[in-house]
C-alpha cells in the first residue's frame, strides 16, 4: 500500500507563528483588558479612548495588536475549517474569503489608527 | 514510497478463482522465520509474504525472554559451550551439524538484528545486554549458568518482529496480509505455488511461484492449555501432509511448567528464578520430593512432570487441575522491582494481586520440536534419504532441521527461526539464479482448496466447530500431554477417528465470504485433527522416554533402538513411518543429568 503523496505543504512556520502570536497576544491583550476594564473609571467613552489612542506608542502597539490578532484569529479559523472541509473548490473559496477579510480589516483598522487625530 | 505493484494477473482455468499472482518467492508466514527470509531474498528478487494475521501480529512477538548467542558481551562464552548445551538439551536427538551452524552463526544473526535497528537492552559499554536462561551453562555444563540470552527488556520477540517488518517495508516486500494459505501445489517433486483465501474480502487467490517458503509457526492450539496464540494452529503442517510430504519427530512437544491456570498464558521462568515456591493443595513445597537439591529450579521438563503428577494424584489446589506459585514471601518491593510484568499479568489476566495472593498455574503446551523436515539450507526433504523437493523451503517452529531434538532450550527458537530463515533466503537466491523458468502451474491447482471452502460453506450437519475443537484440545492435553502410555494413546487414536467422523458432520453459522472467521476456524480444525493423528501415532510408536516425550511405560531413554528421527506420512487413513539417523559429530550421547 502506498501513502497518498501529498504535495508537502509544510505548515511549520504558520504553526510556530500561531504560538508566538498567541504569547504576544497574551501579554498585550491582558494589558488591554486591565486598562479598559479596571484602570479607566466610569464610562468608556470617546474621550477616554481617544486620549490613549492618540499617542505614538499606543498607536504602534494597537496596530501590531490588530494585525497579530487578525492573523492569529483568522489563521485559527482556517485551521478549524481545514479540519472539516475537504471539498477542493470550497476550500479555495474559503481561503480566499478569509484572506480578503484579513486584508480588508487590517487596512480598515490600520487606517482608523493612523488617520485618527485627537482634538483635531 | 512505491511498493511493487501486484504482478500481472494471468488466467488459469477453473471456477471460483479470484486472481492469480506471480512472484519469484512466495513466503507463507510473517513471523521471524518468514520475514527474515524475505529480508534476505528481497534485494534481488520479487518477494511476497502471505500471512493470516497482520505481520507484526505473528506469534514471534509474544516471546519475552531473549535470543541466544555466545556474544560474550557480559562474560566469557564460546560457541562450543552453546553447542554442548543445545545438544544435551535436545537429549542427543538434535542433528549436530545443524546445531554447529546454529551456534556458530548466532552472533552474526543477532548483530545483524542490531544493525537493522532492533532496540536491544545495553550493557554499560553500549553492547547488547545478555541474561541467564535455563539450560545455558559455562564450560560444557560444568560451570554455572552463563549470560547468553540477548534481550530487549522483556519484549525481545516484539522488538525483533517489528524490526524485521520495518526492514521488509524498507526492502519493498509485497505483503498479502490476512490471507490464509489453504493448499500447497507440489507436483512431481517440484513446488509450484500455493493457494490462499483472502480473509477480509473473501475469494481464492492462486500464487504461482518459482520458490515457496513456509514459516507458518507452531500448533500449540491443539492443546487445551497453551501459551500459544490463537493463530497457532499448525496449518503449514497439514498443507505439507496433504501434498504428500512427511513430517519429522512430531511426538516431541514441549510443555512449559508455569502457565496461568485455564489461560495457559506464560508465567516466565524468572518467577522461580527469583525464589518463588511451588505449592500443592496440601500446602506442601512438593518439589522436595522430585528434585530435593534443585527444588523449583530443576529443568523445565522435570518440573512440568512433577506438577502434573501432583495434579493427577489429586493434590492440586482443592483437588483441581492447578497448583500455586507463591511469591508473597518476596515482599512487595522485590516483586514490583524484579517481576513487575508478572504482577501485571496476574492482575490483568486473572484479577489476582500476587503480592497478596498466590498465582494458580499449570503446565502449558508451549513448543513443537518436530515439523517439516529440512536440511541445513532450509530445503524441504521428502524421504529418509534427504532428497529435497525442488523450490520448497521451510524454517522456524514449523520446520525440523533438527536443532532442538527431543527438547528445546529457552531462547534457542527465536534464534533458530531467524537463523534458518536467513539461510532459506540465501539458498532461495542461489536456486533462483540457476532456475529462471517458471514451473508449470497445473490447471486444477486450486481445486482442493475451493472444494474445501465450498464444502464448509454448504455442509449442513449438526456438530459445532467449537465443541469438536474443545474435545480435541482436552483429549490431546489429557492423553497426549506431559505423560503418555500405550493404553491412553491407543484410546486417543480411536477418539481422534471419532472426532474426524464428527468433523464430517459439522455446520458453520456464518455463510458469507467476507471476513468469515467461522469458516477459517473450521478449516483450521480439520487441519489440526489431521496432524494430531501423526503426533499420537509417533508417540505411540516411540517406545522410550526422551526429552519432552515421556512414556510412563518406557521411562528410560533407549539409544540403541531410538536414537533416530521419525518421519511420518499420511495417505488417506493410513500412516506410514520411516526413520533417519541422527547426525552426531562432536558430542557422543551421555546420560542427561542436571
Amino acid at each position, binding site marked *: 500500500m502506498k501513502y497518498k503523496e*501529498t504535495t508537502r505543504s509544510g505548515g511549520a512556520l504558520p*504553526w510556530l507563528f500561531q504560538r508566538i502570536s498567541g504569547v504576544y497576544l497574551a501579554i498585550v491583550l491582558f494589558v488591554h483588558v486591565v486598562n479598559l476594564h479596571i484602570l479607566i473609571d466610569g464610562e468608556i467613552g470617546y474621550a477616554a479612548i481617544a486620549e490613549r489612542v492618540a499617542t505614538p506608542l499606543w498607536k504602534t502597539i494597537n496596530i501590531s495588536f490588530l494585525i497579530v490578532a487578525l492573523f492569529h484569529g483568522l489563521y485559527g479559523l482556517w485551521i478549524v475549517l481545514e479540519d472539516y472541509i475537504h471539498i477542493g473548490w470550497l476550500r479555495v473559496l474559503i481561503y480566499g474569503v478569509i484572506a480578503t477579510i484579513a486584508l480588508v480589516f487590517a487596512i480598515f483598522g490600520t487606517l482608523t489608527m493612523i488617520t485618527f487625530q485627537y482634538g483635531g | 514510497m512505491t511498493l511493487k505493484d501486484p504482478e500481472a494477473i494471468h488466467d488459469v482455468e477453473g471456477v471460483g478463482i479470484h486472481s492469480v499472482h506471480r512472484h519469484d518467492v512466495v513466503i507463507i508466514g510473517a513471523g521471524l522465520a518468514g520475514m527474515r527470509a524475505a529480508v534476505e531474498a528481497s534485494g534481488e528478487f520479487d518477494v511476497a509474504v502471505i500471512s493470516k494475521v497482520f505481520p507484526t501480529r505473528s506469534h514471534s512477538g509474544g516471546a519475552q525472554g531473549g535470543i541466544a548467542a555466545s556474544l560474550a558481551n557480559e562474560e566469557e562464552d564460546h560457541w562450543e559451550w552453546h553447542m554442548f548445551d543445545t545438544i544435551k538439551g535436545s537429549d542427543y536427538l538434535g542433528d549436530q551439524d545443524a546445531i554447529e551452524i546454529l551456534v556458530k552463526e548466532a552472533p552474526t544473526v543477532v548483530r545483524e538484528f542490531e544493525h537493522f535497528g532492533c532496540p536491544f537492552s545495553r550493557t554499560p559499554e553500549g553492547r547488547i545486554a545478555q541474561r541467564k536462561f535455563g539450560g545455558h551453562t559455562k564450560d560444557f555444563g560444568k560451570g554455572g549458568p552463563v549470560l547468553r540470552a540477548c534481550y530487549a527488556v522483556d519484549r525481545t520477540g516484539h522488538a525483533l518482529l517489528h524490526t524485521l517488518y520495518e526492514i521488509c517495508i524498507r526492502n519493498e516486500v509485497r505483503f498479502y496480509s490476512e490471507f490464509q494459505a489453504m493448499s500447497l501445489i507440489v507436483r512431481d517433486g517440484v513446488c509450484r505455488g500455493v493457494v490462499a483465501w483472502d480473509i477480509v474480502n473473501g475469494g481464492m487467490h492462486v500464487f504461482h511461484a518459482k520458490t515457496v517458503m513456509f514459516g507458518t509457526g507452531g500448533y500449540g492450539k491443539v492443546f487445551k492449555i497453551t501459551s500459544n496464540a490463537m493463530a497457532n494452529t499448525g496449518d503449514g503442517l497439514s498443507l505439507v501432509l496433504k501434498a504428500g510430504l512427511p513430517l519429522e519427530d512430531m511426538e516431541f512437544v514441549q510443555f512449559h511448567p508455569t502457565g496461568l491456570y485455564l489461560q495457559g498464558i506464560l508465567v516466565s521462568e524468572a518467577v522461580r528464578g527469583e525464589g518463588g515456591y511451588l505449592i500443592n493443595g496440601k500446602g506442601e513445597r512438593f518439589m522436595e520430593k522430585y528434585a530435593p537439591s534443585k527444588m523449583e529450579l530443576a529443568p523445565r521438563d522435570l518440573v512440568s512432570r512433577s506438577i502434573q503428577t501432583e495434579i493427577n494424584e489429586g493434590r492440586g489446589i482443592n483437588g483441581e487441575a492447578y497448583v500455586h506459585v507463591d511469591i508473597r514471601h518476596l515482599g512487595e518491593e522485590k516483586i514490583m522491582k524484579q517481576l513487575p510484568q508478572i504482577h501485571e499479568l496476574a492482575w490483568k489476566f486473572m484479577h489476582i494481586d500476587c503480592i497478596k495472593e498466590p498465582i494458580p498455574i499449570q503446565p502449558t503446551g508451549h513448543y513443537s520440536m518436530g515439523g517439516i523436515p529440512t536440511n541445513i539450507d532450509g530445503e524441504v526433504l521428502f524421504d529418509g534419504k534427504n532428497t529435497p523437493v525442488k523450490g520448497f523451503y521451510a524454517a522456524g517452529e514449523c520446520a525440523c532441521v533438527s536443532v532442538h531434538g527431543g527438547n528445546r532450550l529457552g531462547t534457542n527458537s527465536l534464534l533458530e527461526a531467524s537463523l534458518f530463515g536467513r539461510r532459506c533466503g540465501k539458498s532461495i537466491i542461489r536456486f533462483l539464479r540457476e532456475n529462471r523458468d517458471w514451473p508449470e502451474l497445473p490447471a486444477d491447482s486450486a481445486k482442493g482448496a475451493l472444494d474445501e471452502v465450498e464444502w464448509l460453506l454448504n455442509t449442513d450437519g449438526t456438530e459445532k466447530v467449537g465443541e469438536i475443537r474443545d474435545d480435541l484440545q482436552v483429549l490431546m492435553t489429557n492423553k497426549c500431554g506431559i505423560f503418555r502410555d500405550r493404553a491412553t494413546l491407543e484410546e486417543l487414536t480411536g477418539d481422534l477417528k471419532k472426532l474426524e467422523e464428527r468433523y464430517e458432520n459439522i455446520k458453520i453459522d456464518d455463510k*458469507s465470504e467476507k471476513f468469515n472467521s467461522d469458516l477459517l476456524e473450521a478449516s483450521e480444525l480439520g487441519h489440526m485433527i489431521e496432524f494430531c493423528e501423526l503426533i499420537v501415532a509417533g508417540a505411540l510408536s516411540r517406545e522410550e522416554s526422551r526429552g519432552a516425550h515421556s512414556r510412563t511405560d518406557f521411562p528410560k531413554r533407549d539409544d540403541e533402538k531410538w536414537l533416530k528421527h521419525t518421519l511420518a506420512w499420511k495417505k488417506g487413513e493410513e500412516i506410514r513411518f520411516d526413520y533417519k539417523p541422527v547426525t552426531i559429530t562432536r558430542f557422543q550421547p551421555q546420560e542427561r543429568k542436571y
Partner: protein
Amino acid sequence: MAMITFKINRYNPDDEKRGHFVQEYQIDVPKGYTLLDCLNDIKWKLDGTLTYRRSCRSGICGSCAMTINGVNNLACETQVLGLNCSTVTVEPLRGYPVVKDLAVSLDPIVRGLLAVKPYLMTKTPPPTDQERLQSPEEREKLDGLYECILCGSCTSSCPSFWADKEYIGPHALLKAYRFVADSRDECPGEHLEPIDDKHGLWRCHTIFNCVEACPKDLNPTKAIAELKKELIRGKLG
C-alpha cells in the same frame, strides 16, 4: 460468576441495508474471564457469525483493540468483572471503516505507518562482526516508543483523524519519533520530512485522546511535542 449482558455493535457487509445494529448476548462470566474469553464463548457457543480479530490473547499482538464501554482497550486485557457493570457495550474501533462486526480496516494504520519511513536509516556501514554501540542512556530514550503494538487505538480516538482522513495519525508519529530519537539513526530528516505536512504533524491539536486510548500506556502526544520541537529547530537552522 455473574450474568453479564453484552451489547455488541454488529455490521454485516453482505447486508448493507441493515447497516449497523446492536445485538445482545447474555452469558455467565466466571472470575478471571477477559472480554476476549467472553467473545470466544459467544462465538463458539451462541453465534458463530460474530466476527472480531484476535491472536495472542496476552496483550502483545494488538489484534483485539476495540471500544469497550466507550473506551478503547484490548479485549484480551479487559477483566469483565473488573468493569463492575452488568451490561458491557462493545463496538468496533471508532474512526476506521468497519469491515465486519468488530473488525475494522487496517488500511489507515498501514498508510500512516508507511509514510514515515519506519525503519532505521544510516549512512555509515555498520561495523563488521560487532554491534553499533549505544549507551544505556541513549537506549532509554526509546522506552515508551518501541513498545507500540500498532493496535490503532490511539488514531481511532483522535478527533483530528475523524475530521481529516488523511491525517497520518498518532501511531505513525510515535513511530517516526522512535527513529528520530534513536542514536543510531543518521537520517532523522528522512522521517521528519514526510510529517512536515498539513496532514502530518501540524494536524495534531494536542487533544490527548490518543494518550487516554493507548492500552500500552504510551504517550504519543509527548512524541509529537518532541517532533514539533525537532522540526522547528530544523527550520530555524
